[in-house]
């Protein structure tokens, strides 16, 4: 991939209405996408399972808004947010979720393997921690080839239990690779609280390898973006790797079928996060109070995104499946 350097969309945290609006827009797009995907599952129109990102929008958006199309990300099983944040469009995403030919992966990856190479998304991964090696390898390649792109590796708190992370952090630190490990700590590893699966401190794990570790409120998109911009700039100069722990919360269950979940997570807690710490509501308030947008404009934007999504869903539902002869295509590259 030797695309010409695109104009960096990342600005160094200065007030920029367009950037903020775009950030807000992206977060709403993620939320809207997830709501629609959830509906598709509940109305039995979506094959398989998927994992909702709702509540964590500020993490994906705050980070991806600091990246260019040349920068890479690797994603997780909870990957729609990263995919949208890195520039994907609704139609192809919904098509992929429904297994249609026009999906990003021609229907062959599905929700858990959705990838959008044109925007640098190396793909969601169904194996917990499975993409850590890939992200680090991408950074290795950047260093080898003298390219200044950066790779961000998204993973959850649960993935800190995977041995692979320690192996790749070790190598990333040894060779000073331009990779940023972004741990989306939403307090739960599937159905178990994080404190029951991660001993000691997550930050300390990165620090043990001499990797600079930062903690940030994952519900504050501006804070996330500001931090990311700094780290990305430094990584481009060869000062990487870096580690970020983002405190966040997923509103839905582990996957769309995880509906009755108060046996491991109280409704009160969920309510608390939704009511008091919602990243979109928070940012909306900020935009309005800073005079960047009016409530009406925001409402209009929301409505527009809603329509986009609805149209895209309708489109995807009507779109054709891949033809049968594709089943054994793409096993091998030519």
């Amino acid at each position, binding site marked *: 991939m030797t695309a010409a350097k695109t104009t960096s969309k990342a600005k160094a945290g200065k007030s920029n209405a367009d950037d903020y609006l775009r950030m807000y827009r992206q977060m709403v797009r993620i939320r809207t996408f997830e709501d629609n995907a959830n509906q598709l599952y509940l109305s039995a129109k979506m094959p398989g399972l998927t994992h909702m990102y709702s509540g964590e929008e500020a993490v994906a958006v705050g980070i991806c808004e600091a990246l260019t199309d040349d920068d890479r990300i690797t994603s997780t099983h909870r990957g729609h947010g990263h995919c949208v944040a890195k520039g994907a469009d609704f139609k192809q995403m919904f098509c992929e979720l429904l297994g249609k030919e026009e999906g*990003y992966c*021609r229907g062959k990856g599905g929700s858990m393997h959705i990838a959008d190479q044109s925007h640098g998304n190396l793909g969601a991964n169904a194996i917990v921690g499975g993409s850590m090696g890939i992200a680090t390898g991408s950074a290795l390649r950047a260093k080898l080839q003298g390219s200044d792109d950066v790779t961000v590796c998204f993973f959850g708190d649960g993935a800190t239990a995977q041995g692979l992370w320690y192996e790749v952090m070790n190598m990333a630190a040894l060779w000073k690779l331009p990779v940023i490990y972004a741990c989306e700590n939403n307090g739960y590893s599937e159905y178990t609280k994080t404190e029951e699966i991660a001993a000691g401190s997550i930050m300390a794990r990165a620090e043990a390898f001499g990797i600079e570790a930062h903690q940030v409120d994952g519900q504050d998109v501006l804070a996330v973006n500001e931090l990311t911009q700094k780290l990305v700039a430094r990584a481009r100069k060869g000062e990487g790797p870096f580690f970020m722990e983002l405190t966040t919360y997923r509103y839905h269950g582990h996957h769309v079928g995880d509906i009755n979940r108060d046996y491991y997570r109280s409704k009160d807690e969920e309510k608390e996060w939704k009511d008091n710490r919602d990243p979109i509501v928070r940012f909306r308030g900020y935009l309005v109070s800073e005079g960047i947008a009016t409530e009406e404009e925001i409402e209009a934007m929301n409505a527009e995104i809603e329509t986009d999504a609805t149209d895209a869903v309708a489109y995807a539902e009507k779109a054709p499946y891949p033809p049968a002869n594709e089943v054994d295509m793409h096993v091998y590259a030519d």
Partner: protein
Amino acid sequence: MREITLSQAVNEAIAEEMRRDPTVFLMGEDVAEAGTPFKVLSGLVEEFGTERVIDTPISEPGFVGLAVGAAMTGARPVVDLMFGDFIYLVMDQLCNQAAKQHYMSGGKLQVPMVLRTNLGATRRSAAQHSQSLQAIVAHIPGLKVALPSSAYEAKGLMKTAIRDNNPVVIFEDKLMYQDKAPVPEDEYLIPFGEAAVLREGRDITLIGTSSMVQVAGKAADILANEGISAEVIDPRTIVPLDEATLLGSVKKTSRAIVIDEGHQSYGVTAEIASRLNEKAFYHLDAPVLRMGAMDVPVPFSPALEDLTVPTPEKVADAARRLCAGEMIHAA
């Protein structure tokens, strides 16, 4: 023609490809100054530097994962896995990630990497350093598997592997690194999916992989003295497999034995024998036999270890009995 060792042949192949394509690089344990414990890669770090010949920590899943990521984003890594036995460690990165990225992305992502490792027992290295695990990776769609049987094959197959845009696993016979064979000076590649008929025969086809090619050849010598003419074929790659050559031979001789150093059960021999049975059934005058390593972990004691692998005598014996029309099972 000059003769060089298998070790030198591999070295040459990698060096030539690294000169030809700057995106090719090497990584693995002790690949740089040490040139690996088998000394195959000696001299490469001097020519290409530590940027392109990277010593890794003992993190097999980790550095294979890195190779996958590097390959997905434009590099062409050659990863050294010190012993084939360690394949178990890297199965997720190799089989869940590398093998499937091209397919899962609908053809958009590719993983042009080579995993270079070895096979072969009778080195007194015991159970965890003596396995021949080609069957395990051959089973996974998306991977290609090459089994060079001499220095000549090793060089040609390695070059092809590096230029292939898919993840390729190459198994070298660790006992053959010092064996010499004629290797041309001029550049040549051996395409995948092309078997080599090493010896023509009329009475029985002996199909051997890797370390077993020599065994088959020696068995053919023994049989020749008894008036039995054996055809010896080396498939060279098992994925893709040159079925046409194998079938053509069996249709001619009407008998076959498949010999591989993986275990007897559920292995490469079973797959090849099965295909011959399916597709040459009406040409068979005898059942197709499989001969693999015994279904036991490789024992340490030399008295025991040597019993567990196919030998020329065992192969010749089986062939003799098949040609005589006996109803037998393989050892």
